[in-house]
């Protein structure tokens, strides 16, 4: 059955990780997931606006949900930040009548109303449901790939809002990645925040949080890091460049998106996977990836 969603890209993906969007579209096409353009989308508001003013955050995020809802569509997003923000808004507006009334009063001027009909889904949730189809399409196994998979906070927590996977032992995306023959290594700081929300407050502390995490990935002998979030990926594929441990050893590790891994293993053309846009060199694992 063809599933269809309005695809909510957010700001970070079109700004710096167009390879995530492109690889998502390539994988979605292969799996018959129809992605409809999200007309009129603004920023999701994300934790930034929620930190500044919760009413404005609920209004901005509620408007996005109402747009898709009023067109009769569900929402799919490849970004943890957008997913968290939209789900959290949906949670508040659904459960709290006072906020719902307040936000609907602000939406009324735009001819919109939130009623809570649109489902909000993360790309990996939808992919997980298509596990069997994906397994049947694996053409080029990635044996030897040792992935430190980073789920990112807002995909799994708070679990009563995200509703996706076990918040203390998430394995669903790991299962997906392991369909390719890769191994997802257990690593101590897998569930720990990447630090990216702190880039706006203190780059130093954001960097220290990332360094701790990378030492954990190295200790687990991972040969790459995989994410499903552009905010996290900013840490792993931008901020990580040139990072060293206390002995001066490089902590760089190739960083890829879930859809790039699945796309390669499914034998999808390399061009739309956008691997040349990954900033940290993929050379150490090029043979395994077959590139």
């Amino acid at each position, binding site marked *: 059955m063809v599933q269809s969603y309005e695809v909510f*890209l957010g*700001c*970070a993906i*079109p*700004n*710096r990780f*167009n*390879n995530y*969007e*492109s690889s998502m*579209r390539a994988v979605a096409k292969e799996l018959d997931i129809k992605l409809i*353009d*999200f*007309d*009129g*989308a*603004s*920023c999701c508001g*994300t*934790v*930034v*606006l*929620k*930190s*500044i*003013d*919760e*009413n*404005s955050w609920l*209004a*901005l995020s509620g*408007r996005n949900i109402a747009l898709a809802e009023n067109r009769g569509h569900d929402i799919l997003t490849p970004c943890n930040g957008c997913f968290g923000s939209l789900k959290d808004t949906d949670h*508040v507006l659904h459960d709290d009548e006072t*906020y719902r009334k307040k936000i609907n*009063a*602000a939406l009324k*001027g*735009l001819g919109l109303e939130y009623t809570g009909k649109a489902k909000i889904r993360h790309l990996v949730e939808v992919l997980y449901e298509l596990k069997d189809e994906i397994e049947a399409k694996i053409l080029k196994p990635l044996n030897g790939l040792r992935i430190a998979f980073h789920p990112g*906070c*807002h995909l799994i*927590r*708070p*679990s009563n809002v995200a509703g996706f996977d076990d*918040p*203390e032992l998430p394995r669903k995306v790991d299962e997906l990645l392991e369909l390719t023959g890769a191994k997802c290594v257990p690593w101590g700081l897998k569930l*720990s*925040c990447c*630090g990216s*929300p*702190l880039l*706006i*407050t*203190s780059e130093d*502390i954001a960097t220290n*949080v990332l360094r*701790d995490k990378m030492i954990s990935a190295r200790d687990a002998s991972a040969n790459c890091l995989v994410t499903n979030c552009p905010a996290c990926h900013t840490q792993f594929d931008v901020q990580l460049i040139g990072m060293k441990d206390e002995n001066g050893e490089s902590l760089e590790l190739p960083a890829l998106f879930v859809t790039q891994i699945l796309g390669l293993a499914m034998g999808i053309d390399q*061009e*739309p996977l*956008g691997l040349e*846009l990954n900033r940290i060199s993929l050379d150490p694992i090029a043979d395994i990836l077959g590139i």
Partner: protein
Amino acid sequence: MTEIWGQFKSFDGKKFEALDAEFTREVSSLLGGKDLTACFQCSKCSAGCPVSDKVNIQVHELMRMLLFGIKEVLETDMVWLCTTCYTCQERCPQGIDITDIIFGLKNMAFKKDISPPGYIAARKSLYDQGRLYEPTEWEREDLELGDVPELNVEDTRKMLDKTGLMKLKEGD
């Protein structure tokens, strides 16, 4: 550069004039604040916090300050160094929405001008452009991606005028 946030660095030698029950009530009425007073100081929140070793005031201390009605909590570094990872909230044995409470504290601090400068810039781009960042066109062309759907910024501004995003401070 002296930061305008995180200036409350230690309890040592501090005397608090009054324990303000009204402040505790105000925080309890924020999103997620309703179970605030159920905190029994087990410190599980701080045990799982990714910045516990990087802040002066830890999450469980922040929670106690709230319960005691100590307004200086808004000046602690824990408020703005919370990564919003939700680990504390997920694990709280009392079911307190700790991370959501910290969001509310950020709102209160922002109104008092206690925030990292990046947030002031972010507010402006959210109001002016409805987005935090603009698309990188050459990358999209290289990957044969279509244009990012347009946004009518007038719409989002109209709404943000209604919620008063640009007038959060008293006297704005």
